């Protein structure tokens, strides 16, 4: 299978650079009222760290590693789940008035 993932220095730099541009461009045009939900939304996105912690935990070979891995997955899951709920609740409020009226 030649579709595996190999990341060496320069490729990582390319990916970092492109990701940074993308993040910047997406935020650059955001109205101020969305700043707090977006802070929370991007907070959710880095909850993906849970996946990395999963890797560490599943590959743990000693009790110390298991403990740290466990804590990592716990924290990461909290980041992801909490970030989602809070963001969703905040954005829930940004209904345009017409829809809101219709809903009542």
């Amino acid at each position, binding site marked *: 299978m030649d579709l595996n993932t190999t990341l060496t220095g320069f490729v990582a730099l390319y990916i970092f650079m492109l990701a940074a541009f993308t*993040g910047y461009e997406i935020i650059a045009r955001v*109205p101020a009222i969305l700043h707090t939900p977006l802070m929370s939304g991007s907070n959710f*996105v880095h909850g993906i760290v849970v996946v990395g912690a999963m890797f560490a935990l599943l590959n743990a070979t000693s009790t110390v590693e298991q403990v740290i891995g466990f804590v990592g997955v716990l924290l990461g899951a909290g980041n992801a789940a909490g970030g989602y709920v809070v963001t969703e609740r905040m954005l829930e409020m940004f209904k345009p008035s017409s829809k809101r009226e219709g809903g009542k």
Partner: protein
Amino acid sequence: MSVQPQFIIDASYLSAAFLFIYGLKRMSSPVTARSGIVVAGVGMLVATLASFLYYFGVSEAAEPHLGTNLVLAVVALSLGTVWAWWSGKRVAMTAMPQMVALYNGMGGGAAAAIAAVEFLRTDAVHETVPLVLAVLGAVIGSISLSGSLIAWAKLDGRINKTWRYSGQQLINGALFVVTLALGAYIVFVAHGHAPVGLVAAFFIAALIFGVLMTMPIGGADMPVVISLYNAFTGLAVGFEGYVLQNPALMIAGMVVGSAGTLLTLLMAKAMNRSVSNVIFSNFGASGDEAQGEIKGSQKPAEASDAAIQMRYANKVIIAPGYGLAVAQAQHKLYEFVKLLVDAGVEVKFAIHPVAGRMPGHMNVLLAEAGVPYDMIFDLEDINDEFKEADVAIVIGANDTVNPAARTNKSSPIYGMPILNVDQAKQVYVVKRGQGKGYSGVENELFFADNTNMVYGDAQKVMVAMIQAVKSLEGGAH
């Protein structure tokens, strides 16, 4: 030959990265924002489920522990998710910022944990570049963890004092250097095989630095700091992603790192301050010096009189501020506004970008109360309309309507754009007394000829106003 687990993992991460970016993109416009978080959420779900497939590819050394590890993973995942879901659903809308801080700190902690496991893998050969990134991610993640915890405690009212002493920055700086030195030792001397005690010292130093760095910062500056730590966690996740050769982490982390940095800058700019000013200076502690006394007097008015004048006005603009949030008066305010609208008055809300204590604070509050999105206007969009308004009513706002920002060069808020409420024919200001705003400066608006003060808690005043208008309607029928 069936599809290999690694292929599914790779494909899932690719789609997760796509969904994250696409979701953030949708979140950045009010119209599509709500679907954005769902899109990103699907990405997270896919990636998390796929990560269980690591089960099929663990190293030989880990195989004997695999059963335990899997159980631990399921338990940790469930515990973390359930607790966060529950706490996130339960928290009051006004307590959102500290909750975001808490979750964000957890992410930083997770990134630091990944680095810690890396430093403990005694069997592995560590290369320099990944090690450097692991150390950087560990430092940044740890700072984000402990710093966010302090930010949470401060905003949640669990820590009240801002801890300041002379030489503070020197001590903080020294601790930072020690942290980096320990990190450099791990990379360049121990080549990733440092003794456990030293690794622990490294993390503890980074964590303490995060605490010390955040303690002196005032509670009102916390939104900016939280946003900064959010960017930090993103960077840490991105770096650890490289260590794990996981592009989904790299991309998600770096996107957040860059977006979060920009967001922090935008927030600081809206407050007319720089980020370093927020972090390193004792802003607000020295507000009331060297200000010329303002001549004139404040003219009080009754809530009912103000309400009735608004009832018969053509156009009323409302400038809400931090006091509205403190008093939780948004529901009563909207009730009052609906009465005015029913009576044919044109009512608009004017939102200053830094009204309240977090970006979008007022918008969130008003949205919570059910105020339609299209009655709410940003500063640039409404500032020219004040001169056509019969009444401008300021509710618990102070700095954001202070004309000193336009004229007084020595004022700490000089240069910040403000709402031109003073151009309305009549201005009412609702506040409890002579209290100052966040920046601690006097406000000559309160002494202006066309300004009257309606003293009282915002919620109580709104109730009185509703009463006044209702009794009027009652009499008319």
